[in-house]
């Protein structure tokens, strides 16, 4: 059994616990306050509920879309597209970063191009992609990838370059070459980096997918947002945005769990 903590230690622990509880409480409180104020001002006519909608109306339309099942195709399309483009970004990004690491000359040559492509607003590419590849799911996936891929190549490549040169020398003194350096040092030491890059990427892929759906889709939450804003169903727009928030939280949370597992 643990020895009894001293009085001051107990007080310290109690203080920390209280602080944590307070923060959690205030977080939830702010959300509830916001929702309540929104609902009240919509009902009393303080704000125009046709434009600003209200939590009640959003919930209501969500329930009715769930019961007639019309929301699910949009949800599944957006989530699948995001996950597929994320998978491609992770595989291609890591592959490219490894290629650049193995061939430093190639890295030097391509660096300015990667930097430009990375800082380019990718939403500008979307219309072009639609024309080139057609208005289909494949295009949306490419669109999602385009937002995240260049940044992840650059991040991973930079991370690979920061491996301890002395550790690489160790491999050399043990008779290893490039392949051994990569397999024994670079990749294992980059696992935390890879995970943090992935956490950023999942959000970026979602952004790219929504941009793609804005201009070239018949299904998906991005399409739903555009369609309903053009037909002035702003309740649907707000509902889609809230669903997107929840999807983002869930995807990010899942990767957080993966990260925790990998740390152990």
């Amino acid at each position, binding site marked *: 059994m643990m020895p009894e903590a001293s009085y001051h230690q107990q007080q310290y622990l109690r203080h920390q616990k209280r602080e944590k509880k307070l923060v959690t409480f205030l977080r939830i409180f702010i959300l509830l306050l916001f929702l309540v104020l929104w609902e009240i001002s919509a009902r009393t006519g303080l704000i125009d509920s046709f434009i600003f909608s209200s939590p009640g109306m959003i919930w209501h339309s969500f329930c009715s879309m769930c019961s007639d099942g019309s929301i699910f195709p949009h949800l599944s399309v957006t989530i699948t597209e995001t996950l597929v483009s994320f998978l491609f970004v992770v595989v291609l990004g890591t592959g490219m970063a490894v290629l650049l690491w193995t061939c430093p000359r190639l890295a030097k040559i391509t660096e300015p191009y990667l930097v430009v492509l990375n800082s380019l607003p990718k939403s500008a590419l979307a219309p072009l992609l639609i024309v080139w590849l057609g208005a289909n799911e494949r295009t949306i996936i490419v669109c999602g990838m385009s937002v995240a891929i260049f940044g992840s190549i650059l991040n991973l490549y930079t991370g690979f370059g920061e491996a301890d040169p002395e*550790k690489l020398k160790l*491999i*050399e003194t043990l*008779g*290893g070459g490039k392949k051994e350096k990569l397999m024994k040092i670079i990749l294992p030491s980059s696992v935390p980096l890879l995970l943090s890059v992935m956490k950023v990427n999942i959000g970026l892929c979602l952004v790219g997918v929504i941009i793609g759906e804005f201009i070239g889709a018949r299904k998906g939450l991005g399409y739903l947002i555009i369609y309903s804003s053009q037909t002035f169903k702003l309740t649907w727009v707000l509902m889609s945005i809230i669903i997107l928030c929840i999807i983002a939280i869930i995807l990010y949370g899942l990767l957080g769990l993966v990260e925790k597992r990998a740390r152990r």
Partner: protein
Amino acid sequence: MKPLLEITDVCLSYHSLSGETPALSHISFQLMPGEFLAIVGPSGCGKSTLLNLICGLIRPEQGQILLDGTPVTSGDCRIGYMLQKDHLLEWRTIYKNVLLGLEIRKELTAEKLAYVDQLLSDYGLDKFRSAHPSELSGGMRQRAALIRTLALKPELLLLDEPFSALDYQTRLNVSDDIGRILRQEKKTAILVTHDIAEAISMADRVIILSPRPAIICKIVPIHFDLENRTPMDSRNAPDFKSYFNLIWRELNHDA
């Protein structure tokens, strides 16, 4: 007896865009099997460069380096190298760490594995096999690094200030420890250090290098009337102080 290592007239310069800096100039010496040689010199004089040359990671611009009569190659399997830090890989267990060299050379044979087991149990790391490096003390980590090198059965061991990252007390203990292990395994070794006392306590001969471009100022044979001396014994020997002063004077000759 034939020398194990013959270095003849080795020269090397560093090259950068801003120019050429001579680093080593006409270095020649020989090393007998079983001998322990220390190289001391002011920092930045090219001591580590000399080790990189001996193990074949870089090639001399002039002169030659022969081990057992044949030139050394990059990653030469006859040479073991200990770096300034232990560089144990945190994501591997101690056992996996000591096997790293064998893994890379694809020599995970039953015979070599048995030798590793022997080393681990001889040097008290048996019970740490499945531990991760962060669970070990500095001294134990350095031992694991040594076993990783010894596992390849190198003919020649190069030690590049292997104790410099340790605190003073650990450093004395570990150098005593490593020194004893090397004598026990009858290894030929070259130790590079800037610590004169460490050099005298461990070596049979001390080579003193000048500031850059390094030339050999003097070679001092160390002899104590002690049988099977450990580094700690040497530090307590009456002649220790006079060797120290001799090397100290030589190092400060130009200053």
